[in-house]
């Protein structure tokens, strides 16, 4: 038993005093959490008032503003934008989920089959790279590649697939595909790591046994690797369903423009534009709160499902 055990019977004051330096070490993080995590949460109250920034500084105008209850929320739900924003948010994140979920699994399976270690290393190194650059750089790259004289259009014309350049970012209908492709591009290497780790923990004897039974490499993959990966795949799938509302802000804001807005505007960018560019602070905060609350509930639900499955199927 730990020696601390004895101190748990000591008085609270003595226990606090004994570890006073630990509490001192906590001070910077504690202040950070209060100011930059909890104060904005308290600030969400502005979604329930008609916030007038002209009434003085933030907190006094905050409490001086008229209370309007759920008016901003019903304004949002009944407005014409709601359907469009929700459609963009959900469709693009479902597409991202499908593509961004399957590709890393295939990548990990393929990397595991490669005999040449040098080739494997080169592919892995390249595939992790996009994860480390900012969305600003990624967006600049995609805008260049997808421009009318960009590499993608030139390549399509070179092989004769199209005669004229496709206006990828100027026409909204391509946006969901582009953004889910970009999401997958950026994260596939990183997301394949966990599958590679799970594969490397599979007992090699199982493959030996399969070989003795006459299984080829493909059969080994379908009968040994995939069934043993299944629990990992299921858990990660459930967890990513919980994140459907969290599309991310950067890629939509940076790849979106006024021409594709009807397809590129999601909850985060919509709230940003109304709040910081149109100064409809309370409305924007209500949209943001709606997103945070739904996302939070989904993550909670999904975590508890995953935990239950985890204890049943993994061990």
């Amino acid at each position, binding site marked *: 038993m730990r020696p601390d055990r004895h*101190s748990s019977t000591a008085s609270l004051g003595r226990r606090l005093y004994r*570890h006073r*330096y*630990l509490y001192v*070490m*906590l001070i910077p*993080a504690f202040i*950070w959490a209060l*100011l*930059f995590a909890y*104060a*904005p*949460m308290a*600030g*969400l109250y*502005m979604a329930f008032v008609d916030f007038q920034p002209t009434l003085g500084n*933030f907190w006094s105008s*905050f409490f001086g503003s008229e209370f309007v209850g759920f008016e901003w929320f019903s304004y949002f739900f009944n407005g014409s934008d709601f359907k469009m924003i929700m459609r963009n948010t959900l469709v693009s994140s479902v597409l991202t989920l499908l593509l961004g979920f399957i590709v890393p699994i*295939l*990548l990990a399976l*393929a990397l595991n089959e*490669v005999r040449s270690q040098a080739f494997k290393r*080169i*592919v892995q*190194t*390249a*595939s*992790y*790279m*996009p994860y*480390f*650059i*900012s969305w*600003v*750089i990624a*967006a*600049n*790259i995609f*805008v*260049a*590649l997808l421009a009318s004289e960009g*590499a993608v259009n*030139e*390549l399509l014309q070179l092989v004769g697939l199209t005669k004229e350049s496709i206006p990828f970012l100027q026409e909204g209908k391509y946006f969901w595909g582009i953004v889910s492709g970009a999401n997958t591009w950026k994260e*596939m*290497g990183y997301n394949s790591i*966990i599958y590679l*780790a799970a594969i490397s923990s599979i007992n090699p004897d199982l493959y030996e046994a399969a070989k003795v039974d006459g299984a080829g*490499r*493909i059969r080994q993959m379908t009968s040994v690797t995939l069934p043993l990966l299944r629990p990992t795949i299921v858990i990660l799938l459930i*967890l990513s369903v919980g994140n459907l509302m969290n599309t991310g802000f950067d890629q939509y804001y940076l790849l979106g*423009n*006024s021409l594709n807005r009807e397809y590129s505007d999601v909850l985060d960018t919509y*709230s940003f534009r109304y*709040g910081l560019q149109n100064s409809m*602070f309370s409305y924007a*905060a209500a949209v*943001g709160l709606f997103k*945070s609350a739904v996302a*939070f509930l989904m993550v909670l639900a999904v975590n508890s499902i995953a935990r239950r499955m985890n204890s049943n199927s993994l061990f």
Partner: protein
Amino acid sequence: MTRDRILNLTGNTLLYGLLGLVFLVTFFPFWQIFILSINDGTDSLRGGFMLWPREFSLDSYATVFSNPEILTAIRTTVLRTVLGVPLTVACIAMLAYVLSKRTLAGSRFLNLFFIFTMYFSGGLIPTYMVIKSLHLIDNFLVFLLPGLINIFWMILVRTFMEQLPKEIEESAEIDGANDIRIFVQVILPVCVPVLATITLFAAIFHWNAWYDSYIYTYKPDLKTLQAVLVKILNQYQTGDMLSQAQQLANENKRIPVTGESIRMTVTMVATLPIILVYPFLQKFFLKGMLLGAVKS
């Protein structure tokens, strides 16, 4: 050929084809930007598929590196990284150490208090209001304080600390060392691997950060490289003919640079440090990512 060998051959073709495609898709975009940045700007306007510069030219680099706005942006970015990384790593290490002490009075509450911030946030607008009320608008501290703690990295460090053998602390406790001395002299030295990992994460975070500079600052000397790049991208996206990149190019009329070649060059300049640092440190990244992946 037997059926098995044909299957094996198609399997291998598929395998190497798929992985070759992954390599091309992830590597080629970077290569393309690099080529466009070292190709003559006017020549690039002709379009065409380029795997190699048609007319090699470093003029756009000369333009970019002689532009005061870009140089200021590089300086600001380096400064926030150099100051922000040690601050963040130190505060996260302290927090992780305290939260790893599960027998500490209030430990359950404190862990919940910090973990909760990972799942729920006030969102963009209230955060902006709080930043404004704290007078952090147009203040260099806005680069350091809001991002001081990252709970995800903290969990990495906490997990690492929880797995350390308890004996190493106990002998120091018997010697009468206080908690700060134990932390500095006993715990920190053995945590070097995980601290190296989050140092790299923090450095990448600071180098890549754009939102804070873009939204919370107006002064030109507080614009980071990524924020300048967003401005260039926005102007390009809205088809602004006198975009910033174009203006930069115009200042240099004698040499053939264009708005687009400038945009590619600034993108390259912002990417290069990460590309250079990346292969050497991949080991640390992988370790950290694996820790994080297993944890989540």
